[in-house]
């Protein structure tokens, strides 16, 4: 079997890459994709511990994370479209004020 620590290190790497993308990229859409990467890192952690303990609760947590990620993607992309309509850009650098 795969040692749990290896899965956890992979999840940590995935989370760090996602965090790097969120903090460094200027395109709001790519930043969103990197948030999905971070959510998947959390999923991987849950599943690794579920395999170690034989506890199916980790699977259900991953299931709920997937559902919440779907909701987040729908609302987030709607906000991106609304911002693009109002400002004509999705560059995070140019979206700095809350004013319409």
């Amino acid at each position, binding site marked *: 079997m795969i*040692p749990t620590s290896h899965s956890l290190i992979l999840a*940590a790497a995935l989370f760090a890459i996602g965090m790097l993308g969120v903090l460094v990229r200027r395109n709001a859409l790519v930043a969103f994709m990197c948030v999905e990467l971070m959510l*998947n890192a959390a999923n991987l952690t849950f599943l690794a511990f*579920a395999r170690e303990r034989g506890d199916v609760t980790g699977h259900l947590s991953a299931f709920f994370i997937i559902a919440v990620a779907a909701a987040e*993607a729908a609302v987030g992309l*709607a906000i991106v479209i609304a911002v693009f309509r109002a400002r004509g850009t999705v560059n995070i650098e140019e979206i700095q004020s809350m004013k319409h």
Partner: protein
Amino acid sequence: MSIEQVLFYVFAVAIVASASAVVFLRNPVGSAMSLVACFFFLAGVYVLLWAHTIAALQVLVYAGAIMVLFLFVIMLLSLTDTGPLVQLTPSRAAGALAAVAVFSALIVALKKLPDVAPGWTADPSQVARFGTIQYLGEVLYTKWLFPFEAVSLLLLVAIVGAVVVAKPRI
């Protein structure tokens, strides 16, 4: 090394490579496609962790539904990305440093985890039902019924919210 471990390391390298491609590709469509690839490799790792149901959901919901939504929005906005991929302003450099710091902190914390040998695999009845859709459903609809209903409400609110936010005029 067993075939399981070989597959895990192949998938792990592929996951890190495709996740890096998501961050460092200039074209958003390229980023989205490598994210799809990343989700498929992750589904492979989930299967190796005996989570077949979640792996199927990962492919159906993530690689299928969510990424199609992303691609729709990318095509709808038809973005042209000019200028440098990453402008290294002080705040961005601090962000990159923070990501590296979080990674090293996680590694240090993971090193302290005790290595628990999974003793539960000795019980064949538990192994037979672990991760099957039947057992997941039993637990979901008994112990986790309230969170399940709460998620259905959350999805409803998200649908209505997305329509309200994205439509120029209701």
